[in-house]
């Protein structure tokens, strides 16, 4: 009898843990930061080719080949000038560069393109917040930067805990 109660208690505990975990996971899942490999097959032929070039750019950024990365993003825009992810990768590239505030207009464009298509998911939004924060911070607007980076960190701690989005993390 006592054993059965114990077993019940354990099961209940497990169930509660599972529920909480699932809820937690579900919340996290909804906010899962975007990775561009997730969208690589989407869209028409120019969009797919453009995304491929963006991924090649991220590969180049990952090995610090900034020249090739930038060239790849430029070509991605040439193939599909309305590809929001090309501007997102370009913004990420710029915040790591010498003039991080150059990223801001690219982030505006990502937002405009995605919201026009109704595709501005929380997974992209968190990158927009984080990158904007990083751009502000690196260009001397510390308070605004910190606030946004903190928000990104809370929403996607795995990626944004260090206040930086690497090329691999976006890939």
């Amino acid at each position, binding site marked *: 009898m006592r054993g059965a109660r114990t077993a019940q208690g354990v099961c209940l505990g497990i169930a509660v843990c599972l529920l909480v975990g699932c809820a937690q996971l579900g919340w996290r899942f909804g906010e899962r930061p975007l990775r561009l490999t997730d969208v690589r097959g989407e869209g028409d032929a120019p969009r797919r080719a453009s995304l491929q070039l963006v991924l090649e750019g991220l590969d180049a950024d990952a090995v610090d080949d900034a020249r090739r990365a930038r060239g790849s993003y430029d070509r991605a825009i040439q193939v599909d000038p309305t590809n929001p992810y090309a501007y997102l990768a370009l913004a990420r590239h710029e915040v790591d560069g010498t003039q991080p505030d150059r990223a801001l207009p*690219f982030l505006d464009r990502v937002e405009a393109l995605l919201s*026009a298509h109704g595709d501005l998911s929380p997974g992209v939004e968190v990158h927009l917040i984080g990158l904007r924060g990083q751009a502000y911070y690196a260009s001397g607007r510390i308070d605004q930067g910190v606030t946004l980076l903190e928000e990104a960190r809370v929403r996607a701690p795995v990626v944004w805990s260090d206040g930086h989005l690497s090329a691999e993390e976006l890939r």
Partner: protein
Amino acid sequence: MRRAGRVAAALAFVGGFAVASWVVRLDRIVVSRFEGRQFRVPSRVLSAPTILYPGLDWRRIDLRQTLVRLGYRDHPAGSDMPVGSLHWGRGRVRVHLRAFDHPSRPEPARDIVMALSSDTIERIVELPGGREVGAVLLEPELVGAYYGPDREQRDLIHLSEVPPHLIHAVLSVEDQRFETHHGVDLRRILGAMLANLRAGSIRQGGSTLTQQLVKNFFLTPERTLSRKLQEAVMALLVEARYDKEAILESYLNEIYLGQRGATAIHGVGEATRLYFGKSVEDLTVGESALLAAIIQSPNRISPHRDAELAIDRRNLVLALMRRQGRISDSTYLQERDEPLRVAAITRDLGQARYFLDMLRRQLPTVYAPELLASEGVRIYSTLDLRLQRAATEALVQGLVEAELTHPELVTPGGDRLQGCLVALRPQTGEVLALVGGRDYGLSQFDRCTQARRQAGSVFKPFVYIAALEPDRGGPSITLASFLDDSPYALETPQGTWQPQNYDHEFRGRVSVREAVERSLNVPAARLGQEVGIERVVEVAARLGITSDLPEVPSLALGTAEVSPFEVAQAYATLANGGVRTTAHTFEDLVNGEGETLERRTLRFQRVLDAGTAYLATSLLEGVVERGTAVRVRAMGLTGPIAGKTGTTDDEYDLWFVGFTPELVAVVWVGFDKPRSIGVQSSHLALPIWVRFVREALGTEIRGAFLPPAEVTRVDIEPSSGALALAGCPERRPEFFLHHTEPDETCPRDVGGPGRVIGWLRDLL
């Protein structure tokens, strides 16, 4: 005797001094040339690279011709395809792409196979291994070059890049004892003399390679004894001062090897590109032999001119190489039987001359014409050569057809009907195509960038934007507003101004959409006054109009003179959702050593809120759907297109400006000395635009103009502009900036809960 001896000694001294002075002078000439800048290398302008990817319409991009123009040569199918070759099979094409060093993205050589359907590239795989590839880049094409007065083109090479067999081939024909003589080869001279005596005419030259170099560098081609003597002395001086490698390298860069149109091709680097479409490092033994054979008489032995003669001469050089032990018997036999594989002739691209001129004007002033003609700068431009060809063809064809349909446009010996076309990528500001007139040879005046012409109705959208833009103190019209199209008179310092519509009719009350779609003058003139002309000027300038705009009432109807290029910039800002980019013609400038001198990066500036930009775009879509540009649809283009026609008073200037989500293009047509054309723009400028866009993008335009978050779409009752609720007999959708939706409703006086119920009913 003594005196005679003294005289002789004096003469000998004077003579010796004169000779010594002469030699010193020649030596100075030699040194200054060899140690200064030896060659003038014209700067080249290269196109934007073509990108191939699965799904791309290979017929529209004319894949085969593009590869041929790039110098890819047909090669039989087989496992070993050399770099720069292609094999076009049924349903597939294999290309061994060359490596190229682009400043932003260098590419390795890649052996790829493209599976082709009837019109698209289905798949691209890379060999060996068959890895699927998402996109590959072709090397940029040569758009043109900035030449000096001599129009010499050369691609400088270093001796280390030259394959030994090319050196052997050249030496075997031109100077087989080059390694051992000191500038002059007496044995060769004697041999040549004997051969010429035997033949009774001059058949052989006795000049060494060094003498040939001296002749080309310093002397005229005349055949006098004194020039020959000078040549010999200078050759000795060159050999005394410089090593054989330096002399050989100079020779290989200097030697004349043929023509590309009016341009003289010098040096083996450029000649290899011309004849074989490849780099000098990739030459085969047979190709090297052919190049060496060409030296003797480049235009006669050119493989483009006489393939049989070229093969004969190549084989003669191969035989010489074998005889001199420079190649083996087996190589000789193998190369002798090789068919001739030469690249197609690439003509000078006269079509892009207006673009080249504009690019030169955009370069920083430090790049003076003299520098561009000599320093070998590589300019990576934004030009899309396919679009450039399409633009040229569309404009020229359109003008020719107009003259056939309207013979009154042709006055013998008089001014010819002119036109121009400029196309930009709105998101980046890249100039993709520019044709400044129908024939650059006849007139270098670029009507797209240098002419200022009355804008006519293409200016009107700036008036509507000034009125639609929120929070700027304007009357804040919406797309559901109505305007007054009744007789209008305005007192001005010049007298009473009474604008008229094109048909001299007045329609009373017209909707904003109708006013724009039918390009009515009177409502636009009134609106201009209500908004304030200074605001219209400010809006136009913000969007991209850079000309001085007079603040007069008629400005609203486009009486100001602007360039088609400015108009393209301003409309590009609309196409780009209110974000202005800097129109530019080049991305990178790289010097001869490969160092980047200039780089243009993407820059944006928001100059108009996205909502207003969208409303203006939506109005201009209406012009294409129902208005003065409806012929765009009739001519077969589908998909998102916005545009505006413009015909000025007395039909002096015809305009059409149109844009898609990815391209904006402006066409202007008129006479240089303005006179009436007697045709509406929709019948002349618009068809040119459609013809161009059809070639550039196909008939189904990709993408969509989508409303941004700050715009809502609601149904209105068209005759009143009121919000259409349930029970309203007529309705059409309309776009509004948030909080500018109409307060009035249809049916009337439905407010509070009734309105909410109406909304819900609509929603359901």
